[in-house]
């Protein structure tokens, strides 16, 4: 059995009395994409900075393919921060030269291909680029070394919708070629499209970590439409299998954690006009998770 490409165990980072990351344990396997979600201040970026060795964890261990972070790790690891960091005084071409000289796996043809994809002029100075173009340059550099591990903090920040989609395709393509991808995004639709696993953080804690399909199987919505006034739902709300009940006009939506069929039968007993069970999308799973503090 091979070690996970990224293995985080019991990671804790405190700044004084503030705990930014609290006992985080997470594995990302080669060939998989893990979307890291969480509201602002959840600890996502701190997790990344710990992973990259920018800050020292208060506790816990981090390993890449079973080995602790070392300079050689970066031969196969690419990182794209939320605000793309570039040498403002240098041109894009000079950035590529810096990479060519520093990384054994640098692939010139791949870099040129990515420049063309993002419509980047290599003669332009980084300091003159817009936010989206800077992100595109950072992504070009990151993918030019054909990394085995990709860590990306809001990788499509500032990009137009076409390029956002292309970035997701790049992530999917990288994973298909065996790379492990860990990325954060506030655009849950992007995570849903690209990732096969999701980790949700809140206030430094990991509150959900699962394969997305398993999450969708586990949580469902029972939606019932009533003809007349809504029946008394208090008894229903007390059902431990129901996470919450939403009312909108004559429609009642019960978000269930388990046994959705039995919950549907209970609601059916209230004589709705129609009733159906639907899968949750990732956004609803995320909202459920961050609104109820499941640990």
């Amino acid at each position: 059995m091979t070690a996970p490409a990224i293995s985080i165990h019991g990671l804790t980072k405190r700044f004084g009395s503030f705990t930014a990351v609290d006992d985080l344990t997470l594995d990302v396997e080669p060939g998989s994409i893990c979307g890291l979600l969480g509201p602002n201040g959840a600890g996502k970026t701190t997790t990344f900075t710990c992973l990259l060795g920018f800050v020292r964890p208060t506790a816990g261990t981090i390993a890449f393919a079973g080995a602790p972070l070392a300079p050689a790790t970066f031969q196969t690891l690419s990182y794209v921060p939320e605000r793309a960091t570039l040498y403002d005084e240098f041109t894009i071409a000079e950035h590529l030269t810096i990479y060519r000289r520093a990384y054994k796996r640098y692939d010139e043809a791949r870099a040129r291909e990515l420049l063309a994809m993002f419509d980047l002029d290599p003669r332009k100075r980084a300091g003159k680029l817009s936010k989206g173009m800077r992100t595109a340059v950072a992504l070009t550099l990151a993918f030019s070394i054909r990394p085995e591990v990709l860590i990306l903090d809001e990788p499509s920040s500032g990009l137009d919708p076409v390029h956002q989609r292309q970035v997701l395709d790049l992530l999917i393509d990288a994973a298909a070629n065996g790379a492990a991808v860990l990325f954060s995004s506030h655009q849950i639709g992007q995570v849903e499209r690209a990732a096969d696993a999701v980790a949700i953080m809140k206030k430094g804690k990991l509150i959900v970590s699962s394969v997305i399909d398993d999450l969708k199987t586990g949580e469902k919505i029972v939606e019932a439409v009533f003809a007349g006034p809504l029946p008394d739902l208090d008894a229903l709300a007390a059902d431990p299998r129901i996470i919450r009940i939403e009312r909108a006009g004559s429609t009642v939506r019960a978000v269930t954690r388990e046994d959705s069929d039995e919950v549907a039968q209970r609601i059916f007993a209230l004589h709705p006009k129609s009733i159906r069970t639907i899968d949750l999308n990732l956004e609803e799973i995320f909202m459920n998770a961050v609104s109820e503090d499941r640990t």
Partner: protein
Amino acid sequence: MEYVEFLRVRRSLSWHLGILGLLTLAILVFGHHAAINIDDGDSTSRIASGMMVPLMALTPVAMFFAAIYASTAGTSLNREFMVRDLAWTKPIARNALALRYIAVDVAAVALVYVLALLAIVVALARFGVTVVPDAEAFGYIVFGLGVSVMWYALVQITTCLLPPRGLALAGILWPIALVDIGLCRLSGTTGTIAHVFAIVNPLAYMSGVAFDAHGATEKAIWQMPADERALAVWFFSALFCAVAVTLWPRREA
């Protein structure tokens, strides 16, 4: 060689050497209208055609040029921390990376120093003054370069852990160093404290050198021969650089 720092140094050198070149050119073009007077406080002498100047006497001027360059080059580790997402994700140990930056920077400081010396020789030749490579010249050249490199190292050690605004300290160090030299002339506690600071003040080691072709004078802050001063400034250069190389990788984002 660290390519990033090479690119940066190439850019900054073009500015500094361009200014040096323009100054030299201006002297060559307009020099016949000017005269050089040297005032050592007690007497004034005039440099005239046919005079011979020992090479060692030029080292303070070249040192000054190189130290100005060192003020900007010495902030390289601080600037590199601001782009740590790129710099610290290179497949190289951070200490080794810092060491490479310093190696490139020191080579650039040395280049500025040597070219400044050459420019002064050329400029003096315009006045008909001959620069003579005296017996002590090599020692003084090494000493003058050591002062420039110590200035670089001092800037590096004081800025490598500072936030971006801390780069202003590289400029503030100049008046601090000059005031310290002035205060060393005082007696009592102030003078003693100034002397303590003068231990790490590169300019203090240069004090007194320009006035006496035979070495240290009673005006010098450190009453030491040139070779001992050279040893001191190179020791502190190495020490400051070593501390910066050790501290910089330990910074936290």
